[in-house]
């Protein structure tokens, strides 16, 4: 028999092995135990509050004005409707990332897609909405169908209209493993999103994303912390130099590996 006290301790991560595993087995075997556990759950664990506070601080922290001033407009803001100068864009990105470092806002270690999405997009991750911008489920975090289609067909530096927003891919790169990855921005009414996604089959998996409340057309502001995050993610992927327009077009139309 498992006591309520023990169940609560289990849920709050305060139980030692092997009891933890034993309770997990009991949960799997007995729906009644599961129901009791759910009833007990109240989210009051001390660790919950500590974690929530740590991320609330991050989410509430405005992008420091000094960082905004130091950052030259990223490629998104600078891009003409034609093809951007990739070498210059990359150089500018590296430079601005260096200028922003160290950045408290997003630590590279904290940039796993699930966390970034769960935290920063929040309401953008919708349940039961098959056409959400970003979909997070048990298979991972990926672009919704509309965004995925736009990512697969929109050249860098040009805009594509999405329901409720505008997509602008910034660059395309090959990751060290050969995956095609794209950095892009999405401007919506209240928020701007910057993200990096890599193509796996028909899906665009979100590697990292960051959003900020922004007034219309304030790409630069939204890109502040997100840019640093994306630079770190590109490094982690061992991404090569941005593809030029021709290579990009070929990569986008090429049969998926």
């Amino acid at each position, binding site marked *: 028999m498992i006591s309520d006290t023990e169940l609560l301790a*289990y*849920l*709050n*991560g*305060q*139980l030692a092995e092997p009891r*933890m595993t034993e309770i*997990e087995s009991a*949960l*799997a075997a007995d729906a009644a135990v*599961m129901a009791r*556990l*759910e009833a007990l*759950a109240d*989210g009051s*664990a*001390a*660790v*919950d509050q*500590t*974690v*929530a*506070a*740590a*991320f*609330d*601080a*991050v989410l509430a922290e405005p992008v420091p004005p000094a960082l905004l001033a130091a950052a030259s407009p990223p490629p998104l803001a600078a891009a003409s409707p034609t093809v951007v100068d990739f070498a210059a864009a990359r150089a500018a990105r590296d430079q601005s990332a260096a200028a922003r470092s160290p950045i*408290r806002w997003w*630590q590279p*270690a*904290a*940039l*796993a*897609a*699930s*966390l970034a*999405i*769960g*935290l920063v997009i*929040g309401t953008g*991750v919708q*349940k*039961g909405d098959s056409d959400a911008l970003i979909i*997070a*489920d*048990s298979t991972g*975090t990926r672009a919704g169908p509309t965004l995925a289609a736009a990512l697969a067909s929109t050249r860098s530096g040009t805009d594509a209209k999405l329901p409720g927003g505008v997509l602008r891919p910034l660059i395309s790169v090959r990751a060290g493993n050969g995956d095609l990855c794209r950095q892009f921005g999405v401007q919506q009414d209240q928020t701007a999103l910057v993200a990096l996604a890599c193509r796996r089959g028909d899906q665009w998996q979100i590697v990292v994303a960051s959003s900020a409340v922004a007034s219309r057309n304030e790409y630069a502001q939204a890109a502040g912390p997100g840019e640093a995050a994306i630079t770190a993610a590109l490094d982690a992927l061992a991404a090569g130099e941005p593809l030029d327009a021709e290579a990009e077009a070929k990569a986008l139309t090429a049969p998926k590996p």
Partner: protein
Amino acid sequence: MPGEDGNHTQEQRDTGDRVRAAVAALPAEQRQLVALVLVEGLAYREAAEVLNIPIGTVMSRVARARAALVGQLAQAGVMPS
């Protein structure tokens, strides 16, 4: 924040950094649930619906994540063990 004691703010930031680093060190499947349940405040059932996984899986992953965080944060002196 302007006018606030500088040391206090620095201390809070250090704590925040440690907590975020501890979260970042979790396996991806646990981190996803930490984001949804601990930070976004979704109920277990809601998180299960969002991710389309059984609620039991949600609970065990959250429990595992909490256990790891409690251990790490106690070690870092952020939380009493």
